[in-house]
């Protein structure tokens, strides 16, 4: 379960709540990304 440290992070292209497209590629060379998977909206975590 789950990818390991040192692996390449798979690219993704998803939409946020305002339906703007957000890709991992957008942050390459610019920012560290924290990608948090949580169960469902309105649940703690």
């Amino acid at each position, binding site marked *: 379960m789950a990818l390991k440290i040192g692996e390449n*992070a798979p690219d993704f292209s998803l939409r946020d709540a305002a339906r703007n497209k957000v890709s991992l590629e957008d942050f390459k060379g610019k920012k560290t990304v924290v*990608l948090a998977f949580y169960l*469902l909206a309105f649940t703690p975590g």
Partner: protein
Amino acid sequence: MSIDPFPSQGAFARELDVSFPLLSDWPLYQTAKSYDVWRENLHLAARVTYVIDKEGIIRGVIENESDMEIHSREALGIAREIAGSSG
């Protein structure tokens, strides 16, 4: 990110007043699958937080189903370490 459709994400984002994007992996769950957190039997993603550096390499993996604070605390710590080491 979660598998919620956009309207749920929007309501959740407004309630939390967050300053980062809440992404929707609905309806294909492709990202949860490619990051190996998809649980087919439950039809839900596991609670996993990844820290990814500027080069696209995974630098941190936080897996804890019960203590949500560990996720933010450890992710922040790792992000700070990366920032410190790369300038």
